[in-house]
């Protein structure tokens, strides 16, 4: 029982404990709840910082709790966990701040923040999971804790969205469970290992392995919103903006993408995936999803729906990069995991600000909004340009690695996909920017709240500004130590022994 045992547990408990306490707080305990929320988020950041430092210096952290024979609850920190956990704990901090500003006037706040904290605990658990079963446990916990957030408003529409969300994710859970149970009976305990655990497992019939791979990828593919498993995501847009931020950037789709990385790299292993020949279909599916999501995004007038389809498209970059089975493309995928999070959360924060401050939900209502909310729209612009892949923003860096990796992997067709996707991104983001900045305001804002000293509440304004700055910084300083891209290189180096 020492530091390396307790640190992962403490990181998990920092939000879990806060969440449980928050559930029991009365509605009116605004100050206590806010303090507790922010204190937990800060504590988590500090603990994660300690973890990052340790992992960078090859310190190992491991917590093991035996559940069944051949089945442990295993928390462990490797470079990949650190990437995801840093992302989620930083973004959790700002999302919490944002959510406090966004929701403090609405009912059921204790329940909301309780589940919100559980959701983050589940994400942290996913990041720290040291084997597939632990991953699954937290993956399902994430489903359970996001459901009440999606249906938070309690309207018919949100209940319907919740039902669809549950239908998809529980079905995904079942596929994952089946694949996992099957693999365990053949290969023993499913610990994540660098280079894949199958390398040391007894030989298994390739056809069986292909089926298991399909089951597992389909299981996590639901949350990663791979077409045709993406149907829940546009529906889930009825959730409040902080929840959308959580779904799209911090927790849910990321958990899915992260799962794909784990399965390809740490369960099957790059060599095995190559031998099985399952990587190419995954790459095609991811490419199709990239194009499909962008095309659908083009035709949405609802801002959040457009962003949702954009998420479907952008998250598949990660799957694509992994499926190319090339170290450089892997760097691109890993970096994009973080970059997309930073950019997309900025966009959702901004969309939430427009809705909360001016009552704007549709792109057609956005004419002239840049004049009314210049800071929000600056952040939005940075996020959108990053998504398109304009240098030196974060999105450019990940696309660059992806493209270069594709060339190295001799999959030049991917360049076409990337180019097409960038064009489409430009086609659905630039008109928004044009309208916001250059079109004059035509109609009065649908429901403008009274204007304070700033263009909106500071708790709503600060988070997108910071995340936008981080998206810019991640691009500008891509070669600085501890930048997402640099950390992604570290992962790739450890994953591919001789890049």
């Amino acid at each position, binding site marked *: 029982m020492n530091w390396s045992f307790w640190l992962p547990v403490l990181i998990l408990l920092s939000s879990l404990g806060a969440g449980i306490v928050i559930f029991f707080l009365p509605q009116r305990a605004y100050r206590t709840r806010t303090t507790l929320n922010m204190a937990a988020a800060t504590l988590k950041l500090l603990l994660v910082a300690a973890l990052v430092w340790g992992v960078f210096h090859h310190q190992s952290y491991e917590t093991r709790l035996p559940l069944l*024979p051949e*089945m442990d609850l295993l928390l462990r920190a490797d470079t990949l966990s650190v990437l995801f956990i840093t992302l989620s704990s930083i973004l959790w901090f700002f999302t919490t701040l944002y959510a406090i500003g966004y929701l403090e006037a609405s009912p059921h706040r204790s329940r909301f923040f309780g589940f919100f904290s559980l959701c983050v605990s589940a994400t942290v658990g996913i990041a720290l999971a040291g084997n597939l079963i632990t991953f699954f446990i937290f993956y399902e*916990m994430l489903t359970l804790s996001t459901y009440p957030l999606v*249906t938070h408003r*309690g309207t018919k529409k949100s*209940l319907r969205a919740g039902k669809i969300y549950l239908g998809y994710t529980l079905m995904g859970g079942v596929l994952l469970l089946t694949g996992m149970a099957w693999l365990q009976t053949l290969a023993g305990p499913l610990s994540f290992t660098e280079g894949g655990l199958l390398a040391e497992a007894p030989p298994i019939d390739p056809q069986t392995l292909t089926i298991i791979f399909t089951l597992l990828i389909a299981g996590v593919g639901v949350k990663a919103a791979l077409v045709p498993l993406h149907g829940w995501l546009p529906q889930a847009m009825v959730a409040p903006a902080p929840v959308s931020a959580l779904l799209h950037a911090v927790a849910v789709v990321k958990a899915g993408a992260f799962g794909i990385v784990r399965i390809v790299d740490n369960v099957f292993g790059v060599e095995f995936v190559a031998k099985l020949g399952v990587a190419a279909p995954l790459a095609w599916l991811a490419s199709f999803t990239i194009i499909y999501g962008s095309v659908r995004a083009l035709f949405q007038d609802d801002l959040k729906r457009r962003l949702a389809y954009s998420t479907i498209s952008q998250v598949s970059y990660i799957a694509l990069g992994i499926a190319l089975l090339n170290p450089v493309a892997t760097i691109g995928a890993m970096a994009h995991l973080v970059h997309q999070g930073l950019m997309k959360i900025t966009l959702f924060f901004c969309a939430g600000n427009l809705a909360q401050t001016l009552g704007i939900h549709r792109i057609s209502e956005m004419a002239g909004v840049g004049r009314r909310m210049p800071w929000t729209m600056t952040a939005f612009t940075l996020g959108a340009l990053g998504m398109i892949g304009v240098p030196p923003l974060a999105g450019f860096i990940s696309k660059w690695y992806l493209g270069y990796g594709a060339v190295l992997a001799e999959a030049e067709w991917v360049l076409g996909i990337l180019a097409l996707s960038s064009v489409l991104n430009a086609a659905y983001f630039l008109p928004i920017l044009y309208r916001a900045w250059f079109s004059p305001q035509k109609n009065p804002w649908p429901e403008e709240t009274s204007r304070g000293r700033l263009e909106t509440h500071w708790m709503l304004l600060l988070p997108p500004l910071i995340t936008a700055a981080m998206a810019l910084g991640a691009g500008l300083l891509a070669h600085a130590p501890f930048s997402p891209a640099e950390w992604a290189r570290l992962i790739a180096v450890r994953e591919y022994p001789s890049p």
Partner: protein
Amino acid sequence: MAIFEQSIHWPVWLMVLPLTGALLTFAIYRYQNLIGLITAMGILWSVIALAQKVLTEGPQRYSIGGWGAPLGIDLYVDGLSTLMLLLTAAVGFFVSFYGVGYAGFRQHNHGSGYFWPLWLFLWTALNGLFLTADIFNAYVTLELIGLASVALVGLSGQASALNAAMRYLLVGLLGSLFYLLGVGLLYAGYHTVDMASLGQAAQAGPLPRTALTLMGVGLLLKTALFPLHFWLPPAHANAPTPVSSALSALVVKAPFYLLLRLWFTVFPDSTTGAAANLLGLLGAIAILWGSIQALQTQRLKLLVAYSTVAQLGYLFLVFPLTQDSMAASTAWSGALYYTLAHGLAKGGMFLAAGTIFYALQQDRIQNLNGISRHLPVTAFAFGLAGVSLMGLPPSAGFLAKWSLLTAAIANGQWGWAIIIVLGGLLAAGYVFRVLSYVFMQAPSKAHYRPVPWLMEWPALLLALMAICLGFITQTPLTLIEIGAPMSYQYLLP
């Protein structure tokens, strides 16, 4: 105290204590809550002491009065019986507290004074069944369980409850009759009713096979396996809430326990693969049928009762899944873990459903809007119990389902695997159907009766236990292996 601990025979004590409690609560009406609670705590403490003994010393056999089989009454305790005793004590403990808080009794003053004596009597009989070492005493305790349960179901005196109780009584008697026929056959054939002696004497042949079939049918009727489940939903749904909880969590497990004993330890030679598959098939149909009924019913308590029909089906998968020696121990511990998980979760869920019923004075699912606002603890208890019932992690239900699933896959029995997974999805369907009303929608303007805290917390604690057993697994797993017909050790080369 140490001398007392050494000399005491915990198994005997486990029957004497609740029986004394039953008599005292009957005689001293004024202090019956106090006496009842002290008894419940005493039983819990004794079971834990017994469990420690079994954990350290292995299976125990006691001869009451020193007579020994075949003359005297023998008691036998191994991991399986300890597990059942522990489950009974845990659920019983919380049900007792709930019973004190249960305001429904004050409402129908009619039979409320009989709750404690009958409930402790039922507890005596349950403990007796889990402890007995012979098949005739098992018959006696089964009969006592049945009678006490019937009386408890009819406690409210309302027409629907009395109807259900009557049906329950007749089915119970029929089941006992079948069982008794089997006992008679065996006694005629082997001149003993002691399980261990029977196990040694019985070789595969028409006599034990016929006896096992007769007893099996009787037990299936009592444990409500599809298609013999018809009596269960009305009986469980119309009983007073603490009773519903005990019936669903414990009473239906008693005949199942006996069936496990007979099948695996007394007559393993007389069982056939075809019979095992038939039991599994009925279990599978029960999972599907019970879940579909639960998805369609309009009343909350009825939904919870149909869920019991479905969940019991999982237990019967143990018969086909243990046929392959490789995965037998996984399937065995999975089924026992399922028994444990279901007992705790369903106990909690029924208590929660009953509290909602009491607060609203009705339990139509459509009218549960926004209940969580008024009964947050109860709503939470229902949700947590639901997590375990659906078999979602982290919960005991998940581990149990995982064991059954890996056993099915390792055996290549894909049909059962699909049923196991499908059952979880269906359970999610009916649990979330309730939760979407309980948590999400705007509260209706209905009048809510205030609910005492003793009705809210026992449900939550039971549900929490079902969740915690998803983490704290070593003790139950060790217990499951003690004296088990198959053990993980067989897996080692």
